[in-house]
């Protein structure tokens, strides 16, 4: 009896350490009539993702990636859909990747999940998962099949998860399709004029949100906000960022909690720390009046 109890306790302890297996999520052959699995599923972990998507792996690793399950489906001689199920570390990671890859969304009114759909590709975000389906030849007849696959999978997934970080940004004036979540320098590349390095110390626990805002003619301005676990962490990141700006950036004014800068395009910006949040405004045509007067 003792041995059975011990074994049971051991199993309970080890259970979380056993890798989750996402192959049960895969639609079976003939879920959509005539579409069958063409070969065994392939699984890639964070350790070998480069073996599958090579140049595209870095962004997934930066956001927080756990596992990719790939299954190919064929129908007749020409129909081919490749289904990729990306298990990310958390909903923020999955949504971050989704926002990077979705572009301007085109939604199917019959499918309620966060998604974008074309005859060649479908991208879906649910919970910590990103689904990517590629319809190789772009045959429109395969679109309902992609939808059916996604309904099957999302029906097995949990709730969408906590994305309150997105509430840090105002919606008014936001340029559509510009909203992003960042977890490192690669994802920040287009939004951050200060450096191509991880100067804000982003990681799996610290993500940033950003978007563009337009209030009139001219280039939109950029707003990024980064919530840190506490004031100390934010202050550490502030000081590090200030010391690591790119050589093409000139710091114009600074204080213990902020600095104004001019970037390589002679556009202006302002970085401020308030308690546990760092805020960066960039691509300004001029500094706010109170900064210019310092």
């Amino acid at each position, binding site marked *: 009896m003792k041995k059975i109890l011990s074994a049971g306790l051991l199993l309970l302890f080890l259970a979380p350490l056993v890798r989750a297996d996402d192959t049960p999520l895969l639609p079976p052959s003939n879920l959509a009539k005539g579409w069958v699995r063409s070969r065994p599923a*392939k699984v890639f972990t964070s*350790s*070998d*993702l*480069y*073996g599958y*998507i090579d*140049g*595209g792996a*870095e962004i997934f*690793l930066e956001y927080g990636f756990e596992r990719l399950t790939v299954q190919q489906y064929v129908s007749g001689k020409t129909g081919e859909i490749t289904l990729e199920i990306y298990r990310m570390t958390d909903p923020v990671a999955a949504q971050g990747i989704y926002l990077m*890859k*979705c*572009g*301007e969304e085109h939604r199917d009114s019959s499918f309620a999940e966060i998604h*974008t759909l*074309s005859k*060649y*590709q479908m*991208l879906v975000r649910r919970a910590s998962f990103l689904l990517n389906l590629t319809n190789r030849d*772009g045959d429109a007849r395969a679109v309902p099949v992609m939808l059916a696959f996604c309904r099957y999978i999302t029906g097995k997934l949990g709730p969408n998860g906590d994305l*309150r970080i997105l*509430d*840090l940004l*105002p919606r008014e*004036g936001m340029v559509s*399709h*510009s909203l992003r979540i960042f977890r490192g320098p690669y994802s920040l*590349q*287009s939004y*951050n*004029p200060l450096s*191509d390095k991880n100067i804000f110390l982003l990681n799996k626990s610290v993500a940033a949100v950003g978007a563009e*805002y337009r*209030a009139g003619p*001219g280039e939109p*301005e950029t*707003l990024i906000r980064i919530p840190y676990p506490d004031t100390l962490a934010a202050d550490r990141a502030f000081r590090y960022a200030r010391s690591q700006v*790119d*050589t*093409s950036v000139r710091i*114009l004014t600074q204080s213990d909690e902020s600095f104004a800068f*001019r*970037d*390589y*395009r*002679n556009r202006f910006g302002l970085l*401020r720390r*308030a308690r*546990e*949040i760092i*805020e960066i405004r960039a691509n300004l*045509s*001029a*500094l*706010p*009046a109170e*900064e*210019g*007067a310092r």
Partner: protein
Amino acid sequence: MKTPKYASLPDTTLLNRRDFVKTLGAGAAALSGLMLGRPELHAATGDEVVTNIGDFMKTPKGPHALPGPFPGKVVQVIDPQSLLNDAIDGRAVRRMFEQGVTSLTGKNMKQSFRMFFTKEDVVGLKVNPVGPPLINTRPELVDAAIDWLDGNGLPRKNIVIWDRFDYMLRDAGFTAERFPGVAIEGLQTMDEKGNSWKGADGRHVSIGNFDMDAFYYAKGIEGKGVRGYTDDENYLNQHVFNNEYSYFGRLVTKKLTKIVNLPAFKNTGNGISMATKNLGYGSLCNTGRLQAPLVFRVCTEVLAAPWIRDKLVLTVTDGIRGQYDGGPDVNAQFVYPNHSLYFATDPFALDMICQQQMVEKRKAMGVKVNEHPRFTDYLRLAEKLELGIADPAKIRLTTLRA
């Protein structure tokens, strides 16, 4: 909806919603006292990686060395017929190919052939097979190139369609059935899962395909512990070696006498993955270690190696379709009809033109673009090394419309 439980953002330091909207496009500050010169280009730092580019530059140039007979000259041929209702028209592509070659050289196709080739040449057509059928090098373009060579007396058996990975060529339709009489060759194989990449001696079965005397060396940059690879075995499966040396394929160093570069038209972040990257990362092994520290610099330095520099006679970038975001892997929502082929003997001038067009496309599609010089510094390096022209003011672009 519940109120989020973040600490409120103090109005005195960070802007609340109403104030933020008000300050968008606010009036100019008192800036007249500031000097507004252009900042320096991204300057080299003292800790730059040491490579063997110096050895390459010491090697005397051959008669066909980069930038070729037309430095700084780029021809773009645009024909909407090339892609109609998502179908490629091979005849239109063939017409475009002829227009582009003759416009670039100023001679007819026969004379153009003689400018670059002899009938004894072994010509490698370097394709990009990634992302079929949307964003890979189109077989129809390869057909046009082969017909030009074949039609001028170069035996088909002397033509090699090649890429780094054999299975990628197959997946993209570059097969003996599709291209009869033409050689199809990958520099290496890779086993996605399993051990078939290992020979009886425990080493990669493709080791013999690489030339131990021809390499790109990067001091201190090894293929060990590189993020994204489980362990040495996993890395070696994909990259064959994991030391400080990336060896060129023997196909490139020993077999080919000329190279025609046929890259795709796509972005990679705020840069591009086109002419120089197609060869920079496609001609040699052990490249995973180079991505993070050297990324674009490889595209110039590898092309400075004599096995590329002296053999690369022509680049035709396949811009029939383009992909403006999400590259270098295929992302269908960003693929668009571009209806263009681009021609040059100078791959650096070609990439600069394509970079500019890609930036404009990204902006037009609402993608936020970072135009920092770091994304094109490698092209300016090429100009400094006299391998090509990167200064847009010195590049001559001719645009032909069908």
